[in-house]
């Protein structure tokens, strides 16, 4: 579905990603694990076309993404929930969710998409009329994922969905992510802590200093002491 081959990215002459290759198949949940600054967010931003590749290719559904503007990549069906409180504070929660049904028309009807987004995180429906600023960190995270979901994407990119959340809210977010995969979406998730990698993860890549140093099943990584030392949390 999504394939990165030997992707190099430089930001202001310093190499951030070196020959990064990874793959996400249909209905897969793939985790990109690495420490802060390892290049996880850079990888996701490169997929979204926000950073220019110095070398390598990125393909989505057989289509080369090189040179496409970000909004077109989103419209091809990649929903991106960035790190941090990525919501639009001046819009209400409802507007935050609905906006993507308008920017990417077609596919499933808008009400169905909004319903799916709310079904994934039911608590959001009760806040629909509130402004984005009145939400807690965890709720913002859910909103950010729900909004990406309302785009009706084939695939979701989640940047550290559990970062900074209180333990009380983590189960709700993980349940939401499980719901998303049940609905048939593929997920590529960046995570800094190996212990946050959800059970449903099918495969795992470990990134360190811009290079992929491990690719395999989650069970295998736990047996690799060298890798565990880096991402042991």
């Amino acid at each position, binding site marked *: 579905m999504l394939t990165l081959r030997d992707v190099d990215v430089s930001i202001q002459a310093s190499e951030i990603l070196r020959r990064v290759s990874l793959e996400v198949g249909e209905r897969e949940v793939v985790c990109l694990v690495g420490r802060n600054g390892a290049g996880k967010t850079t990888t996701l931003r490169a997929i979204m076309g*926000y950073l220019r590749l110095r070398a390598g290719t990125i393909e989505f559904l057989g289509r080369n993404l090189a040179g496409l503007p970000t909004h077109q990549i989103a419209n091809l069906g990649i929903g991106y929930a960035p790190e941090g409180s990525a919501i*639009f*504070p*001046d*819009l209400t929660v409802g507007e935050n969710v609905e906006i993507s049904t308008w920017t990417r028309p077609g596919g499933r009807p808008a009400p169905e998409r909004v319903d799916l987004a709310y079904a994934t995180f039911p608590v959001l429906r009760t806040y629909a009329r509130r402004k984005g600023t009145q939400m807690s960190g965890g709720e913002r995270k859910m909103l950010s994922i729900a909004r990406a979901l309302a785009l009706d994407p084939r695939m979701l990119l989640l940047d550290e969905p559990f970062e900074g959340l209180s333990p009380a809210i983590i189960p709700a977010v993980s349940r939401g992510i499980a719901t998303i995969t049940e609905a048939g979406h593929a997920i590529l998730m960046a995570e800094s802590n190996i212990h946050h990698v959800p059970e449903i993860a099918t495969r795992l890549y470990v990134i360190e200093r811009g290079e992929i140093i491990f690719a395999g099943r989650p069970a295998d990584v736990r047996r690799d002491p060298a890798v565990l030392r880096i991402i042991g949390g």
Partner: protein
Amino acid sequence: MAGPAVAQTSPRAGARAFAPGAWVLALAVLAVLVAPLVVSPYYLTKMLPFFAYGVVLLGLNLLVGYTGLLSFGHALFLGVGAYTVSVATTRLEIRSFEVILLLAALTAAIVAAPIGALCVRYVKIYFGMLTLAFGMLFYSFLIKFYAVTGGDQGLRVAQHSLLGLFEARSGERVRFLTGQFYYYAAAVLAILALVMWRIVRSPFGLCLRSIRDNPEKAEYLGVSVRRHRWYAFMLSAVYAGIGGALLGPVTGQVDPTLVYWTHSGNLVFMVLLGGFTSFFGPLLGAFVFIFLQDQIMSVVPYWRLVFGAILAAIVIFAPTGLMGLLSQRPTLPRWAVLRQAPGPEHAN
């Protein structure tokens, strides 16, 4: 007459505060309607620029308040509209003011299309400087191409008719302006305000606000930031063109000072004075600006000095403008506060 105090940036959150705002709006409309019966012609002629500037500022605020782009050259499009009236009435023998308004809107859109396409590639100060540059370019054009534009003398605005029914007969210009033209201009403002109200609450308006909040994240959701900014630019230019066209008959004469950068500065001032975070704020700003300027000028000639002090006070003490003060919100609207935080400052 001061315009209503609906200081909402979101339609839904407005449900609570809507009722008093609607009352103020209704009172303002009523005041505008009955003013010709009770107010002296002098003040009525001051209301005409208010209607014209009101239209211009509705458009400018789509750019400043809703899209987050500050234009310092918006008088350019106002000038395009005003000169269109003059050229249409004196050279093209067009009398119908409705046709003239359409022509002004169209000309403004045609001029704005390439300028906007270039300007929206830049944001913040670069956008402002580029619009300023285009405004001054047009000013030079008006000054230098004497044969076409009349140079610094400008052009006069000739006879025109409203709805094919009303014309100014000779010697009755003031009666025409404070009578039929007054209501005509008020109606144009009302209609265009209604249209703009719908625009900012449409999904298109939602996209513009998301762009203002955070252009990078708007792109992630499939919003073409550049294209939306361009549409907003064109729309605001069309409003400025129509507003400029309404200004033409009031002065009876158009000249290059209309597009000089200080005039663009006045437009920005009015927006800030009234409050760019509110839909009706710029209208209040125009109203206060026009009548305050009139009052101050009758006392001292240094109105710019006084206005400079007012501007400084507004920026420091009331960044949401008069509308922000009137609606008695304790703090800045939330998005304005967030903008100052380092978060959503990714330039596209």
